[in-house]
């Protein structure tokens, strides 16, 4: 669900210049050309505020958390827990106890599959998974289906790359227990109307697990308004460090779930006769976490909130529109995924040039894009392509970089024809 005012103003050229000054990695040459980083859907870049927050923590405050009475441990614990509270407010969650810190979207979804779904599912129960999902929101469900005798059923998508709501409704049965759906498709950029799906599922008592990896920070996320049961995302797509992720879960569900991994931090008392598990959120956080990473992620949230999520979205929307128009004008180029509501992701193919050749040629022109199946092989199968090229934009990208992409694509066509 996006809560953004539709009339937010995109950043001006001078604002973009100031923003770009915050991102050290953008200012370099690659293969003798200015870097145009257009692979933000794979991983976003980091502003110096995030890099500095991590470095400062290591310089001054590092110690293990939740286990020392000494000053550094207290500082580290405070900084780590402060990040959790930022994430709580960022997601509009009721309580910090609902914010489980993980290594990423993949771990978050596996946690739901193993700690929530596995004890629940009976042979013949059904898990609905859209055909749009990337592997992280499909494979964990296949694994738990194999463990329990449940069945994974694909929800069809349309030729435009949208999850088919009517087909979804016809798939609902009394055996349907879980709906796994991405908020935004990483392969195509489609923004799914997840609230509509969630409402339908909730009316029938079906638990919903939303993969938000590609939604943050491009949409404002309000888990209470969405009314889903679980929401997962990764820090590194939100300008934060890799190896950080979040699982938000409805407190009553998390409370009832058994722990997943055992170890330090998730326990209160341990003896060989038995173990008392810690309370939420620590029950699901075994072992020493990526402390510096979450402190960096907290700084990333401060950064995007300082810029304004609405203005970020407006800027990316404008980049998407400009890039779509420019790319459509290239002979032989087809855009895969043409839903009316899209994040700033364009998947495309060029007649006669394999996406990997495009990737290499564009790299020689300083343009970084992704080429491949985007960890969403069922999506590629649906559109009958082995792979696509994908350009994905962030608010720090410019029209000039899109022009550079277009120039490089013409270069590729000249070479191959």
């Amino acid at each position, binding site marked *: 669900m996006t809560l953004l005012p539709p009339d937010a103003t995109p950043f001006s050229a001078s604002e973009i210049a100031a923003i770009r000054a915050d991102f050290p990695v953008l200012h370099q040459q690659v293969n003798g050309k200015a870097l145009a980083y257009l692979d933000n859907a794979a991983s976003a870049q980091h502003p110096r505020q995030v890099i500095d927050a991590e470095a400062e923590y290591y310089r001054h405050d590092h110690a293990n958390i939740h286990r020392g009475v000494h000053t550094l441990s207290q500082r580290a614990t405070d900084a780590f827990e402060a990040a959790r509270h930022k994430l709580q407010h960022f997601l509009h969650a009721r309580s910090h106890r609902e914010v489980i810190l993980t290594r990423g979207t993949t771990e978050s979804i596996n946690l739901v599959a193993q700690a929530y779904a596995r004890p629940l599912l009976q042979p013949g129960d059904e898990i609905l998974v859209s055909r749009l999902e990337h592997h992280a929101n499909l494979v964990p469900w296949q694994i738990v289906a194999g463990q329990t005798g449940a069945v994974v059923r694909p929800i069809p998508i349309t030729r435009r790359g949208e999850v088919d709501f009517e087909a979804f409704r016809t798939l609902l049965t009394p055996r349907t227990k879980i709906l796994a759906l991405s908020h935004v498709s990483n392969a195509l950029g489609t923004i799914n109307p997840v609230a509509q799906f969630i409402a339908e599922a909730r009316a029938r008592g079906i638990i919903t697990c939303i993969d938000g990896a590609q939604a943050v920070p491009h949409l404002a996320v309000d888990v209470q308004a969405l009314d889903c049961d679980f929401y997962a995302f990764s820090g590194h797509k939100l300008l934060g460090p890799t190896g950080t992720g979040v699982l938000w879960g409805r407190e009553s569900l998390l409370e009832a779930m058994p722990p997943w991994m055992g170890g330090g931090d998730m326990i209160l008392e341990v003896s060989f006769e038995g173990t008392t598990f810690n309370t939420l959120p620590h029950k699901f956080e075994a072992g020493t976490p990526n402390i510096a990473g979450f402190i960096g992620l907290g700084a990333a949230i401060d950064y995007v909130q300082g810029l304004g999520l609405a203005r970020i979205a407006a800027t990316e929307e404008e980049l998407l529109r400009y890039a779509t128009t420019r790319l459509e004008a290239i002979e032989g180029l087809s855009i895969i995924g043409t839903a009316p509501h899209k994040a700033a992701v364009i998947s495309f193919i060029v007649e006669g040039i394999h996406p*990997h050749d495009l990737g*290499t*040629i564009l790299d*020689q022109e300083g343009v970084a894009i992704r080429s*491949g*199946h985007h960890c969403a092989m069922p999506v590629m199968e649906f559109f009958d392509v*082995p792979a696509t090229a994908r350009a994905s934009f962030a608010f720090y990208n410019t029209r000039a970089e899109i022009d550079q992409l277009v120039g490089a694509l013409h270069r590729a066509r000249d070479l*191959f024809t």
Partner: protein
Amino acid sequence: MDLKELYRDVILDHNKRPRNFGTLAVPPAHEARGANPLCGDTLRVWVQLDGDRVTDVKFEGKGCAISVASASLMTEAAIGQTRADVQAQFERIHTVFTHHDAPLDPALGKLAALAGVRDYPARVKCASLAWHTLNAALAAADTDSPLSNPPTIKTE
């Protein structure tokens, strides 16, 4: 780096008009499948032997220009050769792909057109997939029973 070093005319030509593209009947031919899981490229290679001599090679698959051209050039290089010759050629081309400064052996012939690949480490697997798959098909010739599935090799 000049892109024309990678995408030489020979490569672009074999990509556009791959030679020996198609299938052979199994048996008497032997088949292996190759896959590059990272990029989703898939390849099937069939080889027909008369004693120790490779009498025909065909391939099918979807892939980038480098992988298609490499497979196409490979079929031309292998047909009519003894298995020992094919093995020697495999070792020569493997050296080209994996040793940045290795001098080009004149015995490579047209295969030397693939030498530009070694400046693009991310693309070496594209070029080597066909050769690994041919090797697997030749190995299958030693072990094939009519009921066995073709071996599948992967480049990671």
